[in-house]
């Protein structure tokens, strides 16, 4: 007989982790939607967010209320610089080349972080309340619960901005048809810039939460691989897909991790990835692009 309480607790922890995947997935989708760039450096940008926060709080001694916005601003600045310096020159090149540029960027960021803060894992200062939380009878680790809550809030903000704000509408128009958007007076270049800034800011914010839960280390970029699975499963250009995919992958990882063993986590997610690619290559909610000669 299975212990349903235990299963519920594992599932809740998985959904909590999944919320962070979903948040980072939304950052990924923002970039893909607007610029058609698969950004494999998202994991490293997230890591950099965690480290910048650590530097501001532990190094510069700033209070939390100042450090968090500054980290997010730093993320946005990084996004703007990267888009200008690395992605804009690659406009019109094959998607694979741009994809490799982001892999190179990830390598550079990982190296810079290791150079600045060393290779050892670090712990962020405690700032999440740690009174135990119970949902019904099931125990949820407070860090995971608050992390998921903040992630959900940020996702809501991002979705609302995409839906109602002027920039969000411009971004969606650009994603639909670049030429038409351009002729309607939308500055497509600025939309590209904006999407990178918003995505990197979101990723940096996610980095703070991920770091607060599990600590930070230069190998944190591996998180990006799971996010890649999330967005492929959900569909590269779908925000809803990122949400569903994130929760699904979080759940699968947690269940595989606690019932099969920690080393089965990656096996489970990547098997799911290949399965999805075989059955539905454009993901659950993605747009099926038809190729014509």
């Amino acid at each position, binding site marked *: 007989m299975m212990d349903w309480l235990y299963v519920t607790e594992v599932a809740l922890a998985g959904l909590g982790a999944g919320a962070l995947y979903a948040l980072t997935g939304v950052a990924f989708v923002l970039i893909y939607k607007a610029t058609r760039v698969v950004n494999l450096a998202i994991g490293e940008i997230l890591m950099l967010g965690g480290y910048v926060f650590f530097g501001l709080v532990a190094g510069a001694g700033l209070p939390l209320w100042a450090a968090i916005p500054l980290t997010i601003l730093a993320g946005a600045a990084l996004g703007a610089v990267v888009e200008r310096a*690395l992605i804009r020159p690659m406009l019109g090149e094959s998607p694979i080349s741009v994809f490799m540029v982001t892999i190179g960027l*990830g390598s550079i960021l990982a*190296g810079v972080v290791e*150079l600045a803060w060393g290779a050892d894992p670090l712990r962020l200062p405690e700032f999440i309340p740690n009174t135990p939380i119970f949902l019904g009878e099931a125990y949820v680790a407070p860090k995971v619960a608050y992390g998921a809550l903040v992630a959900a809030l940020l996702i809501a903000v991002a979705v609302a901005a995409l839906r109602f704000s002027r920039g969000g509408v411009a971004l969606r128009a650009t994603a639909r048809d670049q030429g038409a958007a351009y002729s309607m007076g939308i500055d497509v270049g600025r939309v590209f810039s904006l999407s990178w800034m918003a995505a990197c800011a979101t990723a940096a914010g996610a980095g703070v939460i991920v770091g607060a839960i599990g600590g930070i280390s230069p190998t944190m970029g591996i998180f990006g691989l799971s996010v890649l699975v999330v967005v492929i499963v959900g569909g590269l250009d779908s925000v809803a897909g990122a949400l569903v995919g994130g929760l699904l992958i979080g759940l699968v990882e947690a269940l595989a991790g606690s019932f099969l063993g920690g080393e089965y986590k990656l096996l489970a997610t*990547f*098997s799911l990835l290949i399965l999805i690619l075989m059955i539905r*290559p454009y993901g659950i909610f993605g747009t099926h692009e038809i190729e014509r*000669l």
Partner: protein
Amino acid sequence: MRIGTLKLSYAADESLFDTKVQWVWLALLAVSLVLLPFVAGPYWIYMACLVAINVASATGLNILTGYTGLVSLGQAAFMGVGAYTVAVLEIRVGTPFFINLLVAGAMTASVGVIVGIPSLRVKGLYLAIATIGASMILHFVFAHWELTGGTRGLSMPPAHFFGIALDQPHKLYWLIMPVTALMVLGAANLFRTRVGRAFIAIRDRDISAEVLGIPLLQTKLTSFALSSFYAGVAGGLWAYFFRVVTPESFPLINSIFYLAAIIVGGMGTILGGILGAAFMTLVPEVLKLVVGWLTPWVPDALSLLAPIRTIVFGALIVGFLIFEPQGLAEIWQRIRRFFHLWPFRT
């Protein structure tokens, strides 16, 4: 000064080189490769072996990615399959090394075909991601199968050639360099044949290629098989060279390394695979030298080596893609052109 090459027959048009001078240079290169172990120190022979192994693997990836246009991030995992096959055969069966290498190649080719099956449905980025998934699964198998020795891996005896143990780089050189030379030559000639031409047609536009009567799935899988065969043999050579095979020997970053090597060298040129693999293998060594010189001024310079290497690796990929997308092979062509046109156009 040379103003052009006149070709009077199809044979001349599809020959490997368009001038006789290039054959002279090739002969000189061959002679110097034969002479190298007699004049170079152990360190340089070690590096030459390592470069040769990487050239073999990069050339294999070039067949798949550079010529067929199918991006793979599974080359390191394929090398792992070859290395483990050789190690298991050497330990359990004890067959001679050339049989082991061939079996490793064949084994990896069949794994490659299985991994290549998604290429029927997906291409481009999606395929690259599918190969990441496949290499993760292969890693899991390496680390959890009894036959592959789990996380501790396998230690194997050296290769034997008529009773001589090939246990030192200067002996292994005579195994590694000829095999690599043969494989590179084979790859160069492959693109003069129907199959090789079909690969290029698929790269340029796969739907058009299918309209022209090239069976897409079959040709793509052939490309996967050939490329993984190269990876398998290169992995086998790698196993003979280091003689310890562990799951950590072939991480995902190595697959990125090979893809970076053909980008830096120049995709879709045989010369590019060679130059890129040699360049990317030697850059970390040069960095080590530079950091060694810095030690008197920067006390903990050696601890900075690993992150600097990571940064340079990334910067090379980004820099070449932005500023020199055709890679080192294009730079080489530019230098050639300069000398051809000298002194009339400089």
